[in-house]
């Protein structure tokens, strides 16, 4: 079952039909109580005629959360959770803040579903570069948000795994493999081990220690702890394939943790996405090793 079909399963009949009909081009579905559902595409959007009744909105949210809000509390605090199939649901609502930190979101007032896409072949060029010469190399995928980093990362992980390398996937948000009861619902390759819904710095250290991967794959590096875990993995002999938000290498270097990783030689290559969903603009050699 693909992400669109899974998403339609949570929706009332009329909306589900529309989502299925536009599924091929749908990038996001935005829902607000007592407002018209918004379907977004890469070239615009569509507002449906009928507003979503507040109780319908609550029912959709409850079903997406599997009637188990307690289980998603930490994710909701970060502002999103992931559906089976890998689609990410961003949320907003009334916030409870304590000591400057968001402690809870009550009264959900918006759901923004970013539809997951599995694009086979998107990572071919990158995987080829990473496996050139036998030993796996490390790479950082850089792009602005919503450009297809996750799609590219997932497909590259699948291809590297297909090529015979053992891959450890640190899937903090559950978007890369979209595991259901421990089983990936998206194809991440036959030699791939997944640790999901775990902070990536913990997952990377754990997997390097216990699974002896050739390549560690993870999404959206950002903090100091991520940098330490990536550099440790590199010193342990594993290659790292990761992504980060930035529009260029120069901009990535303005973020302290990314700058530290790049300067310490954590990555052999940097891949820039630009000009289309998951489309690689450039793969550049960085040189050096951690």
């Amino acid at each position, binding site marked *: 079952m693909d992400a669109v079909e899974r998403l339609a399963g949570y929706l009332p009949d009329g909306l589900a039909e529309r989502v299925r009909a536009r599924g091929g081009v749908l990038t996001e579905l935005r829902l607000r109580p007592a407002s018209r559902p918004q379907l977004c595409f890469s070239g615009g959007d569509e507002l449906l005629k009928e507003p979503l009744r507040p109780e319908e909105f609550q029912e959709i949210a409850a079903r997406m959360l*599997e*009637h188990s*809000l*307690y*289980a998603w*509390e930490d994710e909701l605090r970060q502002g999103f959770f992931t559906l089976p199939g890998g689609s990410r649901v961003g949320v907003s609502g009334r916030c409870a803040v304590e000591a400057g930190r968001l402690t*809870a979101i009550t009264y959900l007032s918006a759901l923004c579903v970013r539809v997951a896409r599995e694009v086979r072949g998107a990572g071919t060029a990158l995987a080829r570069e990473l496996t050139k010469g036998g030993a796996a190399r490390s790479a950082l995928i850089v792009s602005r948000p919503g450009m297809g980093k996750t799609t590219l990362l997932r497909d590259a992980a699948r291809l590297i795994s297909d090529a015979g390398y053992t891959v450890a996937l640190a899937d903090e948000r559950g978007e890369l493999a979209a595991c259901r*009861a421990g089983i990936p619902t998206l194809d991440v390759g036959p030699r791939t081990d997944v640790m999901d819904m775990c902070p990536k710095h913990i997952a990377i250290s754990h997997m390097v220690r216990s699974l002896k991967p050739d390549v560690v794959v993870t999404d959206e590096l950002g903090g100091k702890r991520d940098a330490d875990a990536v550099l440790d993995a590199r010193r342990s002999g594993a290659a790292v394939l990761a992504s980060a938000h930035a529009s260029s290498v120069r901009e990535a270097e303005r973020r302290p943790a990314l700058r530290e990783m790049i300067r310490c030689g954590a990555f052999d290559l940097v891949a820039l996405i630009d000009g289309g969903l998951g489309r690689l603009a450039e793969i550049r050699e960085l040189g050096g090793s951690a």
Partner: protein
Amino acid sequence: MRIALVVLAAIGSALIGRSIAQGCLRRAAALRQAMDAMQLLRIQMLERLLPLHAALEKSGFEPFKLAGSLLAGGEGAASAWKKAAAQLTKRGAMLDCLTADDLNALAQLFDGLGMTSRAEQEVLFSSALREVGRLESEAAKSGAEKGKLYTTLGLLCGLMLAIAFV
């Protein structure tokens, strides 16, 4: 022959009394099982963070498992329990021994199950466990009293029959 029939009638009456007494004790046993399942459910939900339907299915208590399977089909917790309870309180079913108070206590748990934060779920569990615990001790006490009463009544009826026939 007559004596044999009299003995059989006496034993039969005693057994009927005993069976009614067992029925009274079943309520306490069912509530004890529900309490054990609630403890397990709390661990599966709040410590292992399993989704509600999976946590219910791992609770080891048939009524909760049934509610879990209905929940997996898209029902909310309260309506899943309502449907499960309706099936299981029919005559001869597993929960037919429970009283309206017992069923209310369990329904209150399911009304709040799942859709609040972990801290609120902890409060819900402790309050439900306290209430079901109170009902269980009441059921155990009255079960023991009624158990003795019905067993004795059965024996007495048997003896009366025996005397009447002899």
